[in-house]
């Protein structure tokens, strides 16, 4: 394999939320196959700055696949074509010299573009603030081993809790639905004994907040699961629907 790639980028450039935005073609020669996708953009940005052009703005932070900040659609797929991988963990040896790479921001009404590839995902925080918690104040918690939790349930709760809140599920969905994100949190708490008291209220409040924030609904095409860098199962959406049905049809 050649050590250096020569790529052509088509990058979404948008000055701010009000700008219409456009694709810009950028020539990217001499990119090491060992670089990560974001390091490739660092190199391109360094060159742009040297030429007196503004660098491409994109969100990123931990660069080890866990903070959930990086967010770009690469050749039509959120976080690119590798399964179970965030953009920061996608490396250039997965591309060929001569490739054209199209890079866009998450596109969803609830995630307005701030600049270039950077979007505002505060709608996710808003959903969490509506009910994504167990109402326990600091202090006074019983001993951690007071309530045993079956390992199978704890493991399943952990599967759901692995969500990094990046929003790839929304970007992948033609309805820009946040169902997988909300379902992961609802399921985590519904599976644990500590989450039982607020179980019904939580699912109702979080779904109401989701609708209010402008996300679409689910039409069962599972694009979200395919795009999820943590491979969160759509089975959690079914679980959440059951939770919701139970919450609105039964009384205590």
């Amino acid at each position: 394999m050649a050590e250096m790639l020569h790529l052509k980028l088509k990058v979404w450039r948008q000055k701010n939320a009000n700008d219409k935005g456009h694709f810009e073609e950028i020539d990217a020669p001499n990119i090491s196959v060992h670089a990560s996708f974001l390091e490739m953009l660092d190199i391109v940005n360094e060159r742009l700055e040297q030429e007196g052009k503004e660098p491409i703005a994109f969100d990123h932070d931990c660069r080890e696949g866990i903070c959930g900040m990086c967010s770009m659609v690469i050749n039509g797929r959120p976080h690119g074509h590798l399964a179970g991988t965030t953009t920061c963990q996608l490396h250039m040896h997965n591309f060929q010299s001569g490739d054209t790479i199209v890079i866009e921001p998450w596109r969803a009404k609830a995630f307005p573009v701030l600049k270039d590839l950077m979007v505002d995902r505060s709608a996710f925080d808003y959903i969490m603030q509506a009910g994504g918690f167990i109402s326990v104040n600091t202090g006074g918690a019983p001993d951690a081993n007071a309530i045993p939790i079956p390992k199978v349930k704890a493991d399943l709760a952990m599967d759901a809790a692995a969500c990094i809140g990046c929003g790839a599920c929304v970007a992948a969905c033609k309805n820009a639905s946040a169902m997988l994100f909300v379902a992961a949190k609802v399921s985590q708490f519904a599976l644990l004994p500590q989450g039982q008291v607020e179980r019904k209220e939580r699912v109702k409040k979080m779904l109401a907040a989701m609708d209010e924030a402008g996300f679409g609904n689910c039409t069962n095409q599972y694009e979200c699961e395919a795009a999820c860098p943590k491979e969160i199962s759509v089975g959690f959406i079914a679980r959440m629907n059951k939770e919701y049905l139970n919450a609105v049809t039964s009384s205590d």
Partner: protein
Amino acid sequence: MKLNSKIPSGPIEKKWEEHKFELKLVNPANKRKYSVIVVGTGLAGASASASLAELGYKVKTFCFQDSPRRAHSIAAQGGINAAKNYKNDGDSVYRLFYDTIKGGDFRAREANVYRLAEVSVNIIDQCVAQGVPFAREYGGYLSNRSFGGALVSRTFYARGQTGQQLLLGAYSALSRQIGLGAVEMYPRTEMLDLVVVDGHAKGIVTRNLVTGKIEAHAADAVVLATGGYGNVFFLSTNAMGCNVTATYRAYKKGALFGNPCFTQIHPTCIPVSGDYQSKLTLMSESLRNDGRIWVPKKKGDTRPPHEIPEDERDYYLERKYPSYGNLAPRDISSRSAKEVCDEGRGVGPGGLGVYLDFSDAIKRLGEDVIRDRYGNLFDMYQRITNENPYKVPMRIYPAVHYTMGGLWVDYNLMSNLPGLHVIGEANFSDHGANRLGASALMQGLADGYFILPYTIGDYFANSGGKKVSTDHPEFKKALEDAETRTKKFLSINGKRTVDSFHKELGKIMWDYCGMARNKAGLQIALKRIPEIRAEFWENVKVLGSNEEVNVSLEKAGRVADFLEFAELMCIDALNREESCGGHFRTEYQTEDGEAKRNDEKFCYVSAWQYNGEGKKPTEIKEELVFENVKLTQRSYK
């Protein structure tokens, strides 16, 4: 200045209990009259914000990321220590205290560390109540594993994502308070300066990273939970945004900086692959249980590893530390790797790597067993390097990971500036010269959930509650300073990018103030840093304007502060003429290459006071008193 650490008297196991009783309280109905600014939303900042709001204080919380959930605590893998003794294996608060103080090479305060061990048990209870899905046994009870250095099993974990789960727990508690209107949250907002009025910390100046708006915020107390400064090295395991600005700005406003030279280098990271590299990825230390570390005996041997016969390999850790072998402690393993690479025997691009070879383990146990133990790590390695570690030995190299130094605080976690509290990695207090694995998460949450909420009330009750608004001249001045500085960055219009300066500084720091330091090297660094800084202020290129998203401008502010802070680190490293924990001065080592402490002369905390631009800072000493543990030399043979 004389430092008062406010360590309570009495026997160590009673100190915190009695101190809590001595602390003054604020009437529940009066708490809403007090406002607190919290900067940073990692484990310490998020847990403090939520807990203070639950108590009734008015809280404003700030983070530079797009959401409080992204803070870098999220990346911690291994686990969190707690003296629960669920395993019935002889653990106790006292044992956790002892392990931690010894791990820190006897450069931390006994009283603080004991309290940390004491509240560790409450943390686990709190997190379970929040719905943190810790690993469990089939009986439904919590599972533990053992971690570096400890002889008991006391580490609680959630797969390889313990930091993520704990942070999401604290974030959910914080989200609840935001929803209730008790916390006002400012994401994508970076602190640029601290405002001090009549000697008390009364507010901050921030920049909105979307609109560029520079604003002042006043409060009755300020809490910094802004993490460590590992990115002064440019390359580290820290997130890209981690920076020293908040704590360094506080230092320039009069807060003392404690032990800045105490940094931790983690031995098992994926090596640098080129000059475009932006960060280093940690590979769990557990790999050293089955992997053997080696380099070729010959210098400049470029043969692929499988062509190098057994008798031409140097398994240097096994050779030098026959009893610990590949499981030699972090600092020893890191330094040994550097030594062999400096000799020209390193492997991989640039010769900065050593092999971590699993072929013997695979022969002995089979590939399936290895896959079962380390599958996810092998996958991660392959994803990044495009090499199959089942077939080819991994290449690893040490990387900067954690900073034990930070702003000086007293037992109440308050700095020498009244009203300024510092928690988590941002303070200097609990880890001495070296941090043990699974202790950082413990400290962040201890400070935020169980210590600061008690001690901050004492400050309010004692300070008389003098209110200051942002109309005060000190706020106006701080705002002006921040605006002037921003304009300056944008007007220099030089030829070099911000990153190029950051990389240049990082290399100097890594070469001369990294894993091994000596007088000559530190003097070179102290000569070079001001030169780089001077060039930065004349030749940096920051494009765009202030009134928009401007990533280069953000970075320029951070790097400008690193360029000053780096000098303080080197001054501290030069001043501390001993080796202890992560601070290894090559002049001070035992015959077999171990760190040689000098308890006669250096059994103290160096707290540095800012004296103005271009002036040498003053060292103020806090003598460390050990009433419970005996100072011993650590040996690993």
